[in-house]
């Protein structure tokens, strides 16, 4: 099939058929911020941080396929402010204590907070009452930090394809849960994969913490997005 031509903020870009805006933007050296998106997982479009404007409408760039002649607005003042607002809302609707979180420095939400220069909250803190489940043998589920991106639900399955993580409740009460029997059979490798897949510190591998020294963490020297953006 032929190459698809489209533009992002006026820049001529090329995409392969079937690529989403996020994927194509990456190939063209343009960073569109994401949080629930993870390469290799089916897009869910839950966080809306990748919101772009296509033909005057707000769209989730991680779920929208590129079409011929598409005109995408990405780095406009309005969109950047929406994104910042979403990040701020995610912070205030959870209980995020970065100073003592072992994901600090490796956390995508924190990294986005830095990228968008979130200096002070503009929304009131909700201080929700959330629980920590430490009863599983290999992982701790720290719901205070969960942003309901559903990466774990989509990405962690048993060898025969059964999902270990799931979602319960609705709206503001949504929370991640696990099939306790399946979770009990998780290996160390699966626990590590779940922790790495979680963009925040909501899934922690048991009995190991702060093993990566400051300075060597993912975002210590490379801010989020810098691996995609070309100078």
């Amino acid at each position: 099939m032929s190459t698809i031509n489209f533009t992002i903020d006026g820049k001529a870009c090329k995409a392969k058929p079937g690529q989403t805006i996020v994927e194509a933007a990456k190939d063209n050296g343009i960073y569109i911020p994401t949080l629930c998106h993870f390469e290799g997982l089916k897009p869910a479009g839950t966080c809306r941080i990748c919101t772009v404007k296509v033909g005057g409408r707000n769209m989730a760039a991680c779920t929208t396929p590129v079409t011929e002649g598409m005109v995408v607005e990405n780095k406009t003042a309005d969109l950047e402010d929406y994104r910042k607002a979403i990040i701020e809302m995610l912070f205030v609707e959870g209980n995020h204590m970065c100073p003592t979180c072992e994901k600090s420095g490796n956390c995508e939400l924190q990294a986005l907070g830095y990228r968008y220069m979130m200096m002070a909250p503009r929304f009131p803190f909700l201080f929700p009452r959330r629980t920590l489940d430490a009863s599983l043998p290999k992982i701790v589920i720290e719901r205070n930090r969960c942003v309901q991106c559903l990466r774990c639900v989509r990405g962690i399955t048993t060898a025969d394809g059964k999902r270990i993580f799931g979602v319960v409740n609705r709206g503001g009460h949504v929370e991640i849960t696990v099939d306790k029997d399946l979770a009990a059979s998780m290996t160390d490798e699966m626990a590590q994969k779940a922790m790495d897949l979680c963009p925040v510190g909501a899934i922690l591998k048991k009995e190991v913490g702060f093993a990566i020294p400051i300075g060597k963490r993912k975002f210590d020297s490379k801010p989020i997005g810098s691996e995609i953006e070309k100078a």
Partner: protein
Amino acid sequence: MARKITIEPVTRVEGHGKVTIQLDPQNNVLDSRFHIVEFRGFERFVQGRPYWEAPVLVQRLCGICPVSHHLAAAKAMDVIVGVGPDGLTPTAEKMRRLMHYGQMFQSHALHFFHLVSPDLLFGVDADPAIRNVIGVAMKFPDLAVQGVMMRKFGQEIIRVTAGKKIHGTGAIPGGINKNLSVQERDEFLKGADPMNIKKMIEWAQAAVNLFKDYHKKNKDFIDSFAAFPSNHLSLVRKDGALDLYHGVLRAVDADGKKILNDVDYQDYLKYVGEEVRSWSYMKFPYLKSLGKKDGWYRVGPLARLNTADFIPTPLAQKEFEEFKAYTNGKPNNMSMHMHWARLIELLHSAEMIEQLLNDPDLQGDKLVAKGTKVKEGVGLIEAPRGTLFHHYRINDNDQIEMANLIVSTTNNNEPMNRAVNWVAVNQISGKKEITEGMLNAVEVAIRAYDPCLSCATHAIGKMPLEVTLVDAEGNVVDQKRK
């Protein structure tokens, strides 16, 4: 008319506290108290957290010596993960020691140069407008620079061992998360003047000499001010050497008799109790064998030099011998000698840093040891301000279910109250006029103990002194604040 003097907050100490002194109509002191007005609550909110988070979480108690809490918690967690205090790899233990001595160095330098030197250089009753760190910087710029650079040196040592100057993550249960690269090491061994260890040792020695000169000229003040007999408690190495990172618990009484004979600190609850009094958020620890009334003790530099038999570095040992000779080998009970002891420790810390930097074990790559997990662990360390106790118990799910922390300053609660009372009775009681200088004398006595009251905030600058006049019925008649 009876009145109550309130000094709030006490300045040039770490954190917030206040002093109240009750006077009768003739200005005779009826009572004095040193109150700690802050409440922390770490022991409660650490409950439920995974145990491996504790070293990073609890260090947030303090911004001045977080390394102490970080390491005390890590030591307790070493016990919990079955490695125990003696099972760390050489690289892990020496990296932690380097971190700790770096902290000791920066904290002692900060205390002496920034907080105490204004009282010594300008006088206890000098004009408060110059009796502060800015005044020192203006009149004694070389000394002020030394203070700043020594603190910086210690902070940089912390950075390369813990990852950050304040609130790092270096120590983890059973070990450490990094070693020291040759490049990092050489920053300190071969750095351009003054940022190298040779210069730091030279300056630390000069600071000891500065105090000794001052002592010679102000013998009465240094020897008698807020002096009182007490018990002394600290960790010592198994062979009796001064060891700030690890050892056994030893206590001596005012005459030097051992009242706690090199016991394993895992059993600290057998020996140490804590009393609660209604007017302070700080508890009053005591040795159970002597009871609440007589069991109180001092911790910190003075106590450490009173319990230790020797110092295992040459320059500090020489100073230690002179220090011990001054009291004929008996325990030193003079509060102001705390500064002398602290500066000897400053020198010792610099020497230890040099020794450690030259140790190739720091470049080793065996960072973490593993053992069989247990449910409970105690970690003790000699923090800059004295013995620090951390005690944790975990449940079957690896969550902390109990934490007990006895912070260094808490151990010195009764001694600081005694010191305040000494000043109130000896320098304020019965005086016709109560001057600002007299009230500063109260603070000078407290400052000798280098208390860390909240372990996080830090009041500096103009002294916000408040004096309240209260009549016999307790009504406020007059209140002055400056």
